[in-house]
């Protein structure tokens, strides 16, 4: 193989004029992190609502929740992003559509919404599973002491259900981070996009992608450690892990 290794390229100025190539990758990492966190917040909020809806005992809410999950989970993420980015603005009233298309951070907003909705379907199935894992007696005990249905969820079911699903939620958060790389297809300059740009400018494909990969791994390690810490903090003495 004829390849000229040149790790020094990272200290060369990048064509965007904002610093070195390394700075360029770091800026990409920042977009990756911000996109992942915003998407994850949407996924958690909507996923919790939909997950709860499927456990209320109402047939109608169960069906609506199931439909939501099937819709957002089964269409490939790439297709969903394209739909949000290219198709939806065309379907809006012309003025609104034009305004959306001219948004400075349009790709970012689209990525956050698209990835957030996609992941919310996966979070919803976890939330439902977590609540269903609890004995039905817990719900009855809550109702019996006079709590309203909403209070039973707030004080009895969710605190326990979320403890049960903390490990799978961690891996869904890691999936969210990985999925942000799909947003390069709509022009979001996140880590993968920057690595590719660097490769195109410098032809140092190995350095660019090895470094990007290392940054993803480092990010995952940080998140995993953080979630472990949270899991430890949430452990209840005398309660067997997993409910």
């Amino acid at each position, binding site marked *: 193989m004829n390849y000229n290794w040149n790790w020094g390229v990272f200290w060369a100025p990048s064509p965007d004029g904002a610093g070195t190539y390394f700075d360029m990758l770091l800026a990409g990492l920042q977009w990756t992190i911000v996109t992942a966190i915003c998407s994850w917040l949407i996924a958690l909020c909507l996923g919790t609502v939909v997950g709860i809806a499927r456990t209320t005992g109402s047939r109608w809410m169960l069906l609506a929740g199931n439909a939501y999950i099937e819709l957002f989970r089964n269409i490939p993420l790439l297709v969903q992003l394209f739909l949000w980015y290219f198709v939806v603005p065309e379907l809006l009233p012309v003025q609104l559509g034009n305004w959306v298309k001219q948004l400075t951070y349009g790709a970012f907003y689209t990525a956050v919404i698209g990835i957030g909705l996609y992941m919310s379907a996966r979070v919803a199935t976890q939330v439902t599973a977590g609540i269903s894992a609890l004995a039905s007696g*817990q719900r009855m005990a809550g109702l*019996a*002491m*006079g709590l309203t249905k909403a209070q039973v969820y707030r004080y009895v079911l969710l605190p326990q259900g979320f403890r049960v699903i903390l490990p799978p939620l961690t891996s869904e958060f890691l999936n969210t981070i990985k999925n942000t790389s799909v947003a390069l297809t709509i022009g979001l300059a996140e880590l993968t996009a920057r690595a590719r740009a660097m490769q195109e400018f410098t032809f140092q494909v190995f350095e660019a992608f090895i470094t990007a990969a290392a940054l993803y791994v480092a990010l995952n390690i940080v998140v995993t450690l953080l979630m472990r810490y949270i899991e430890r903090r949430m452990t209840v003495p005398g309660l067997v892990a997993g409910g």
Partner: protein
Amino acid sequence: MEMISLRNIDKWYNPSFQVLKNCSTTIEKGEVVVVCGPSGSGKSTLIKTVNALESIQAGDIVVNGISVTDSGTNLPKLRARVGMVFQHFELFPHLKVIDNLCLGQVKVLGRSRSEASEKARKMLERVGLSAHAEKFPGQLSGGQQQRVAIARALVMDPVCMLFDEPTSALDPEMVSEVLDVMTELAGEGMTMMVVTHEMGFARKVANRVIFMDGGEIVEDRPAEDFFQSPESPRAVQFLSKILPH
């Protein structure tokens, strides 16, 4: 004064399975009524209709003068004053004992945290568990957990108490510590409806015994009469199985 009145209760779990058949009984204030009968006879279902944890298709239920079946009734408010104790305790495992006892007081009755916690500690002392306030339920024995569950119901100042097989999930050596608390409670005049197979408790404490079979109330008589001379063959058979010879 009538505390709990059930009139002609019918309940179906599905169109082909009627779990409660025309059940009627009245429990006076201060009365202790034991409900017994074979497994699957509908005892748990019946007791859970009293605080509307189970819905019914026909009949009337009135607790402390308030209709349970009226769709306008504020069920959370009603349930707050009806204590319930379950077979498997159903303490909230993620909350400390003290917080289990404060949750309903604060969130349902609107008491201040300090008022609630003072009441909780008094009640824990009463059931002999003062030392365990800061523990989690999973760190207690079954008997201790069930006593906490009774205390959790009592801090709400209930007008009556429902027990669904409170001792049947306990190791034998822990049964009496729970029954003792219940006996004491009965002695203080608490209205109690107790599903149990502890016939010793029924004899000693109950005013009346309700015997159920196949979703029907087969016998509803003073405890002494029931044990001395059960009327129905089904009750005779049940007692012969359950009582030591």
